[in-house]
């Protein structure tokens, strides 16, 4: 799930305006882009890489690991299933407003083929200094610096703000995992947390949550089991219940998906949840100092 320079990236919809712009940005940053897909322009080159008619053709001609989709909602299902059936390890689905039945078909196909879907409605993933996939400003050094804090966010804009706050507070990132704001995303908060807990380059984790669903509550189980410090901010405390706040997944129905439920679950598991995102770096400093003291004491005891 954490993007590496060795990951070969295919861009579905590479020739569009956004596809072109972000492919150039990814390439300039160091991401290994090996090709693009556009059935009408197959055989040509674009952004210095070959265009294929399908993801399957790309797999048969050199192969790829990760596909990123710059594809409008009505065509997203077919594109995702093409990549999944081609054998993509990961599909990063940026598209917002894909009909939910199409999303379920994508997930069913992904489960069958062992493909990880990140998204839909994600801004993508970044590993500072190595590469990025999607539409995050990885190239902005005020937002992203190589470091040892893993960041999980359902939102690109809020994730950007949190990364900016961390860098100002002296913390670079081991990885940014944007998982998306839809109700049925392929990679959950818990999945992303598990990846960061397993990552030897990650010392601490900033978990940025949102009202709606129960992903933060489920992730809290892992927070309780890890020694890595976890700090968190949950967005949507002031949002009126019953209204979709831009993200389709951010809606509180009854007691489910509420701010209090998420904050309570994370705090009981040992995370520090802050009131405003600007407080995240200080909370992280305090937890990391404590963890360092603990491991120092452990070394002395050994």
């Amino acid at each position, binding site marked *: 799930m954490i993007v590496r320079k060795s990951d070969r990236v295919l861009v579905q919809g590479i020739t569009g305006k956004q596809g072109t712009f972000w492919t150039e940005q990814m390439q300039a940053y160091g991401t290994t882009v090996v090709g693009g897909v556009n059935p009408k322009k197959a055989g040509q080159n674009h952004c210095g890489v070959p265009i294929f008619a399908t993801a399957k053709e790309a797999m048969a001609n050199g192969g790829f690991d990760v596909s990123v989709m710059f594809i409008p909602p009505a065509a997203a299902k077919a594109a995702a299933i093409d990549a999944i059936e081609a054998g993509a390890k990961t599909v990063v689905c940026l598209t917002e407003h894909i009909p*939910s039945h*199409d999303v*379920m078909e994508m997930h069913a196909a992904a489960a069958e083929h062992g493909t990880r879907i990140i998204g839909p409605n994600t801004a993508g993933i970044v590993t500072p200094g190595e590469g990025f996939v999607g539409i*995050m*400003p990885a190239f902005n050094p005020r937002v992203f610096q190589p470091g040892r804090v893993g960041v999980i966010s359902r939102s690109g*804009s809020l994730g950007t703000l949190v990364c900016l706050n961390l860098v100002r507070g002296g913390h670079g990132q081991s990885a940014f995992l944007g998982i998306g704001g839809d109700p049925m995303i392929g990679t959950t908060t818990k999945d992303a947390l598990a990846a960061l807990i397993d990552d030897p380059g990650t010392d601490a984790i900033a978990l940025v949550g949102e009202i709606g669903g129960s992903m933060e509550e489920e992730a809290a189980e892992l927070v309780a089991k890890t020694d890595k410090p976890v700090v968190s901010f949950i967005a949507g405390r*002031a*949002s009126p219940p019953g209204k979709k706040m*831009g993200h389709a997944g951010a809606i509180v129905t009854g007691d489910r998906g509420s701010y209090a439920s998420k904050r309570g679950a994370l705090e009981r598991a040992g995370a520090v949840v802050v009131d405003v995102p*600007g407080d995240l770096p200080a909370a992280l400093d305090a937890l990391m100092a404590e963890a360092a003291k603990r491991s120092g004491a452990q070394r002395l005891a050994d």
Partner: protein
Amino acid sequence: MNFEEQAGKSVLARAGVSVPQGRLCASAQEAEAAARAIGPVVVKAQVPTGKRGKSGGVKLAATPEEAAASAQAILGMEIGGFPVARVLVEEQAAIAREFYAAVLNDPASRSPLVLFSTEGGMDIEEVAATRPESLRRMAVDIRKGFGPADARRLLLGLDLGEAAVPVAAMLVDLYRVYRQHDAELLEINPLALLADGRVVPLDCKLTVDDAALYRQADIAELGAKEPLSALEERGRALDLKFIELEGNVGVLANGAGLTMTTMDVVSHAGGRPANFLEIGGEAYTKGTEALDLVLSNPGVKSLVVNFCGAFARTDVMAGGVIQAWKTLNPTIPVFFSIHGTGEDEAVRMVREELGIEPYDRMEDAISAAVEAAR
């Protein structure tokens, strides 16, 4: 998009599912006439929300006169914030048993979920808590669908007697309608077994995925219109995500997560946000329209502009706001926090063209705006 009971039932009827005989009525006279044609009826408020029975929005009527009186009492009520403009006058069924049935999108399994319970008429949360043994659930592989064999497997071990066959057929029908119409939820509560052995939906709650309405044009006209304020209507026409709230601090931010967060920090600082409005994604070029929308709310006493650009360029968004500010020439104070893509240019523009110094920390910009709104 939500569908009122009557609209949901007409979607079922169009798909070949047998529903009770009934008429939609907007007056006591119409209700009386309907009852005269149908016989003993039940008169039900038509609003796109639940809890109608508990609010007094459902009444039995044995005679046409009673139907008229019931309709008179229910029309004009307000249920869950919705004024009742129409009632459904429907035949009284000879009910032998009541069940619960639903098909819905399940985020946990990322698949359709079929639910059935022998405890009809109750909230499903309550059933799950108090009579879990009566509740069956089945996650469906959406590519394979849900057929008669699946329905029989789902119902296995429940004491349904001869109703098992028509209930199974109904579940298959409900799944078909759910699938055919891109539903997020199709819930029948109660699903009734009648004295004559038929199984019929006595209520229907249908929610169709807004993102799929482009391919559901044939039923979209039946759906309930979302109750929007005049400003919210204007926002929708501009394709902006705008929700009007009761506060006094106007909020303009990009991206759903950052906009929600801006509202949170306004509240945390002791203020009240006046709106949700995000101009991220493709909407980031609409700064002018967006600002006009926020300022059109007379309750707004100060404004926070909070941009954190990733995909959205802050210089483009700030340019739109500056242009709008010069055109509209508002008298309220505005507080900026700008970071991310195009930040240097955006900050310079705000400083030079509006003579305003953006704040470095968004929390500080928001505190200042909350203070100014007092």
